[in-house]
């Protein structure tokens, strides 16, 4: 199992503490912003910008504008906070300054004495503030008079209404240095200005509040009331008389009239008392919305609900199926949900939420909660309140793993153990599992446990005080029923005790009491008293603490469960792998997904910080910030179980050496779009490295082979892998350990259309893949042969080679691959019978032709058609190819000249002597290129079939071993790659260049390389293949991007550059030819990929592949271009770019090898 927590910690260290991580329950060190948001129930877009100690003065009731009452009204000392869009005052002296200690910032999470976390005070959206004036009070203090839009509708602002307006106006006296006060006021001024535009939004949102209707002016008595839930149509649950709804309404009307309504409400002690006695039906929805803070979410985006419904109208999803199943069974006893009206509302709210929070989707119990909300509030209100519930109030309750539910059960159990040890002991003894009964309480917020009227009373308090209420009520239930529960000896009895208690909540708690007052106290009232008096010690911070304590255990339990289940259900293919392997794969799979999400999050945070000043971006960031840092951990409900291609690369890079990139600086497109412009590749800021899209791990390679593997494993072409697909994919490689199977698999991987044939391009891709896979050395059991030993000795004698034994095998493998290509072409079948003749002729020519190619190079260059004719074969090239692989391909043959420089070179030199004769070498190379042209001639399409491929593989011992052992065992599923065996620098690669075989690179470097490798002819095939593997991978992206540019350049300068090219050519030395060679290759490769140049380039590519030297390369390039010479220039330029990058790297290698 990967160490998740350590990564989380690491991630958190990287975060700016001011960034809003809205995870107070899971974050050991919650950010100031998240604490601030929790205290005032603000959206995650809000950050504490300024704060100042202040005194709030609320003028006494019924003071109308203009009156000057001597009475000073109510006064509260506290703190005034300013965020981007809110001005908040609270009597709770919490501070969110950077310098404030965590305990100071989280005072509000302790005992709130019924005042709720936000205490007495106000939470004004800045757009609700109409005017702020600085008062010149007699004692020269800094005082602000704040008047709001409270009760002022747009048209009411007209003069005629002015006189009966009772403007809400409060005074705030700032206490602080003059500077601090000025600073705060400046911030406020800015904020007010910025929020002027939101006044219309505010009016729209408040228009849906029942309080506006309740307090409407006399002349609007006939207006239709805003939607206050299904209760308006189907009656609210309970007897309004018994609930004393009218009296409550009157009290509330009075309170709201004096202290402001909805957005402009000022919290005074009466407010909290009124909530404790139960909200009146028609105001209940609005107060829930206000106290939970969901009204601020609605203010941020008033049309989100309607927009979401419109956007996804007609779409289907799994969540919707699940919702449909439950619509008819959500509070079915309430008449509103026996009607299409109520069910329709429920459907829309649940559906809309499942779209905006696809991660949660739909969880049973949400239907019950939302149904309850809809009795009291409109659809939009319920929608936002559901968001507030899922994100803040009961986080993780409804997630796919329900970790929040399970965690809170654990917390509840430990609270029971602590507060009622005797009962707890009894539960343990009688083996009654508490969560069996308590889980539904929490999950449905008591709604389907208690009679509705009482459940709503609990909710009233819950939305003000937060989730601790659920615990307090739960504990109180157990405490009150303690005696009876102690008699219950099993789950059944336990449940029935509680069931009957809930059914009698409206009965007197003390029916036999003499005192009539006491007799009038219902069981529910008793419950509330016990909950909030006796268990007043249960605070938000004690819950948070317990959650933290139990979180890891709960999560790992869930993860174990999920893993166990997942592994068991991976399908038949999984049987091919061991349980350990499956377990390790599971961990790796989700580990990668998790880490990637973490990084994405961090990167987003970083971007958010950069975009902080941009208002438009803020909203965007805010919506993302909601999900918190821990997203992705399996136990929290993975937001994805799908692996895209990039994750797949990373996944492989954790197990396979070959999947690690050779050039870890390549920028990646997706995550750093703005960084792609180039600077990222060469020099990175140190902290940028931390934000690398690949995290701390090695950057994975991006090779065609990986892409093919991904596509192959992605059996339903959904561009993503599930764990099951990964397991099935790996099972076919690693599961059977059967060489034929692996060979077949490899073949199928390159059989694009599944017709059992791999064409010439495919053959080359196969060889590229083989080289790609082997470039860090081969693994598995390779039979040590005498030649290995000899060659190793040779290698060490020649010096400069690290890891000698591995390299010599790898080196032989390079030979094997070149033999592979040759054999493939040799035994390939022509695609069309009409081409049979030419193929036969080709073969015949190959066998019979003995003379060396005599024609001058220029002639060849002049007649590109000659490449296609292909009757100019000679033995030398055949010999050459054979020679290259003969010692390697048949390891039993001892190396002939063990004392020569690097073995590969030596092999070439034996065959190509005199190897310092440029002419000979040139001829040979030319011959090779022509041979290649025959084989590669597009007019002679050919293919190999699986039997051919198998034969070719089995003809070579090393290849056989590769498929038998090293390929399957290169997947280190269980042990992974330790840092020791994860080479990331190109210097440790087994490639042609790292073996010291010169290939064309820029300037002096190539000179040095060539100096060390006189047998340049040998570089032909190898060098170019090496290009394919190293260069292609590294530079392709770069080149692709620059290709268009170059193309344009090239068309512009075609003529001039042609001349320039010519001049340059005149002065060319061999090494520079090689430069051209490499460059030409790069451009060709790139242009083919980019599709800018046609097939002819591809054939020149082939040409190079078989070892074309400078002239051939040039010729090919010339041939390919729209204007002769022009492409040469383009190619050269590209080579310069690509080579430049490479030279720096190879240069280092060379430097070590040759300068030292």
């Amino acid at each position, binding site marked *: 199992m990967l160490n998740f927590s350590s990564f989380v910690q690491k991630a958190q260290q990287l975060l700016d503490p001011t960034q809003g991580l809205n995870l107070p329950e899971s974050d050991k060190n919650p950010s100031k912003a998240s604490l601030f948001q929790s205290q005032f129930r603000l959206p995650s877009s809000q950050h504490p910008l300024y704060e100042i100690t202040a005194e709030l003065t609320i003028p006494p009731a019924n003071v109308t504008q203009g009156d000057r009452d001597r009475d000073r009204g109510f006064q509260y000392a506290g703190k005034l906070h300013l965020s981007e869009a809110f001005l908040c005052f609270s009597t709770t002296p919490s501070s969110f300054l950077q310098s404030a200690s965590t305990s100071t910032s989280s005072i509000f999470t302790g005992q709130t004495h019924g005042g709720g976390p936000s205490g007495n005070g106000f939470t004004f959206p800045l757009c609700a503030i109409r005017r702020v004036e600085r008062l010149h009070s007699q004692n020269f203090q800094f005082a602000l008079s704040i008047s709001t839009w409270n009760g002022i509708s747009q048209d009411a602002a007209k003069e005629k209404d002015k006189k009966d307006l009772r403007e809400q106006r409060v005074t705030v006296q700032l206490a602080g240095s003059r500077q601090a006060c000025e600073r705060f006021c400046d911030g406020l001024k800015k904020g007010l200005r910025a929020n002027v535009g939101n006044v219309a939004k505010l009016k729209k949102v408040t228009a849906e509040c029942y309080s506006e209707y309740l307090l409407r002016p006399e002349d609007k008595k006939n207006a239709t009331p805003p939607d206050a839930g299904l209760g308006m149509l189907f009656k609210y649950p309970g007897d309004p008389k018994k609930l004393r709804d009218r009296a409550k309404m009157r009290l509330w009307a009075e309170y709201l009239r004096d202290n402001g309504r909805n957005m402009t409400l000022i919290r005074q002690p009466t407010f909290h008392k009124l909530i404790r006695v139960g909200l009146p039906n028609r105001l209940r929805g609005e107060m829930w919305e206000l106290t939970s803070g969901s009204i601020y979410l609605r203010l941020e985006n008033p049309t989100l609900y309607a927009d979401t419904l419109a956007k996804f109208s007609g779409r289907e999803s799994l969540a919707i199926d699940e919702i449909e199943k439950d619509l*008819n069974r959500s509070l079915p006893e309430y008449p509103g949900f026996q009607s299409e009206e109520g069910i329709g509302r429920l459907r829309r709210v649940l559906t809309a939420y499942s779209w905006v929070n696809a991660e949660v989707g739909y969880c049973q119990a949400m239907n019950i909660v939302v149904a309850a909300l809809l009795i009291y509030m409109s659809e939009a209100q319920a929608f936002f309140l559901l968001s507030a519930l899922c994100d803040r109030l009961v986080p993780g309750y409804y997630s796919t793993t*329900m970790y929040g539910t399970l965690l809170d059960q654990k917390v509840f159990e430990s609270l029971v153990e602590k507060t009622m040890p005797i009962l707890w002991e009894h539960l343990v003894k*009688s083996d009654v599992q508490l969560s069996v009964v308590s889980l539904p309480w929490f999950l449905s917020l008591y709604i389907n446990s208690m009679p509705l009227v009482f459940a709503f009373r609990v909710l009233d308090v819950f939305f003000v005080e937060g989730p601790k209420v659920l615990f307090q009520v739960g504990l109180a239930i157990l405490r009150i029923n303690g005696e009876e529960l102690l008699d219950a000896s099993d*789950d059944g009895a336990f449940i029935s005790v509680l069931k009957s208690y809930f059914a009698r909540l409206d009965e007197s708690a003390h029916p036999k009491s003499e005192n009539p007052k006491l007799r009038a106290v219902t069981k529910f009232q008793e419950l509330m008293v016990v909950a909030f008096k006796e268990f007043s010690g249960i605070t938000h911070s004690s819950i948070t603490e317990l959650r933290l304590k139990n979180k890891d255990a709960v999560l790992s339990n869930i993860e174990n469960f999920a893993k166990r289940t997942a592994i068991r259900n991976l399908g038949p293919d999984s049987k091919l792998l061991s349980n350990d392997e499956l377990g390790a794969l599971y961990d790796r799979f989700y580990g990668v997904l998790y880490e990637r999400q973490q990084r994405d999050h961090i990167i987003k945070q970083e971007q958010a910080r950069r975009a902080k000043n941009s208002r438009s971006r803020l909203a965007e960031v805010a919506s993302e910030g909601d999900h918190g840092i821990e997203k992705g951990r399996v136990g929290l409900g993975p937001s994805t179980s799908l692996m895209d291609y990039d994750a797949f690369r990373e996944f492989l890079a954790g197990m396979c050496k070959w999947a690690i990139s050779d050039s870890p600086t390549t920028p990646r497109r997706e995550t750093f779009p703005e960084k792609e412009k180039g600077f990222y590749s060469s020099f990175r800021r140190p902290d940028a490295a931390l934000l690398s899209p690949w995290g701390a791990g090695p950057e994975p390679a991006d090779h065609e082979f990986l892409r093919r593997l991904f596509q192959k494993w992605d059996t339903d072409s959904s561009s993503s892998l599930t764990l099951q697909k990964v397991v099935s994919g790996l099972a076919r490689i690693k599961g059977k350990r059967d060489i034929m199977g692996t060979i077949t698999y490899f073949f199928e991987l390159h059989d694009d259309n599944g017709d059992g044939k791999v064409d010439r391009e495919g053959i080359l891709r196969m060889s590229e893949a083989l080289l790609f896979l082997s470039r860090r050395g081969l693994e598995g059991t390779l039979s040590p042969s005498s030649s290995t030993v000899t060659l190793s000795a040779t290698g060490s004698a020649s010096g400069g080679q690290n890891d000698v034994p591995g390299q010599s095998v790898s080196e032989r493998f390079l030979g094997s691959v070149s033999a592979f290509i040759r054999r493939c072409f040799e035994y390939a079948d022509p695609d069309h019978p009409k081409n049979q003749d030419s193929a036969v002729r080709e073969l015949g020519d190959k066998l019979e032709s003995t003379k060396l190619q005599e024609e001058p190079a220029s002639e060849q260059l002049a007649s590109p058609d000659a490449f296609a004719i292909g009757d100019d074969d000679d033995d030398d090239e055949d010999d050459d190819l054979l020679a290259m692989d003969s010692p390697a391909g048949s390891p039993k043959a001892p190396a002939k000249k063990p004392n020569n420089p690097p073995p590969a070179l030596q092999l070439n030199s034996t065959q190509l002597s005199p190897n310092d004769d440029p002419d000979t070498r040139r001829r040979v190379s030319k011959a090779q290129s022509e041979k290649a042209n025959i084989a590669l001639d597009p007019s002679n399409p050919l293919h190999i079939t699986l039997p051919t491929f198998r034969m070719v593989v089995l003809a070579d011992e090393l290849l056989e071993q590769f498929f038998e052992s090293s390929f399957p065992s290169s997947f280190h599923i269980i042990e992974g790659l330790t840092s020791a065996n994860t080479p990331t620098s190109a210097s440790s690669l087994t490639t042609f260049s790292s073996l010291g075989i010169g290939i064309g690179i820029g300037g002096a470097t190539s000179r040095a390389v060539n100096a060390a490798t006189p047998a340049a002819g040998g570089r032909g095939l190898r060098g170019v293949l090496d290009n394919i593997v190293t260069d292609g991978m590294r530079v392709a992206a770069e080149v692709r991007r620059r290709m268009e540019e170059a193309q344009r350049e090239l068309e512009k300068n075609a003529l001039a550059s042609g001349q320039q090219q010519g001049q340059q050519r005149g002065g060319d030395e061999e090494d520079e030819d090689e430069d051209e060679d490499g460059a030409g290759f790069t451009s060709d490769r790139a242009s083919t990929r980019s599709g800018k140049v046609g097939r002819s380039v591809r054939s020149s590519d082939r040409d190079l592949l078989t070892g074309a030297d400078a002239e051939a390369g040039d010729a090919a390039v010339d041939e390919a271009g729209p204007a002769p010479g022009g492409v040469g220039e383009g190619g050269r330029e590209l080579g310069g770019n690509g080579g430049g990058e490479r030279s720096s790297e190879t240069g280092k290698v060379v430097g070590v090898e040759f300068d030292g």
Partner: protein
Amino acid sequence: MADSNTPKPSSSVKLVLLGEAAVGKSSLVLRFVNNDFQENKEPTIGAAFLTQKCNLPTRTIKFEIWDTAGQERFASLAPMYYRNAQAALVVYDLTKPTSLIKAKHWVAELQRQASPGIVIALVGNKLDLTSDGAGSGGDADGAGAEDSGDARKVTTEEAKTYAEEEGLLFFETSAKTGYNVTEVFTAIANAIPETSLKTARGPGASHTAGRTEEQRVNLNGPRDPNAKEGCAC
């Protein structure tokens, strides 16, 4: 369940119902306990608890039935409910092949994680929707009536073969018509070994140790040694 005058030994058996959402778990229980059928029942949150007696010739079994929520995400709660269960009804929907797959997952889970010796019955429900709906054709609703009245997607053979391989009791039922419902519970009652009844639900002192680990109860539970045998694969 007619009461018998002769005093018979009575023991309680914990039975858990598992299966995909909306296969009819709650309906089976409702049929068994109240001999009733409801179209719209509140979904089970967590689990519902019901009891019903089952009279056998030699003894009376009191079933303590834990009817669990079927939604996928509630699966991680299931260990809480099936812990110490002596019997399990794994239910699938005859008209929904995926529900049998889910049922197989549950069987595998139970075999490895639940009490060893747990009696598992595989039950294909909604027989009334199939053509061989046990003479209840008239009762079948629209969903089953279309397409020659046979909505069956899982053959009896397929499920039966699987049940035999795994050593499960196997029934096809209709909670709607009541067909075979009581038989399932009777068969389970008969299959519970006498020995397990004696120790059943006994509050063992060693439970204390297991409590804190209820998510993986049976690894640390009192029957630990046996549990390991059950896990051998």
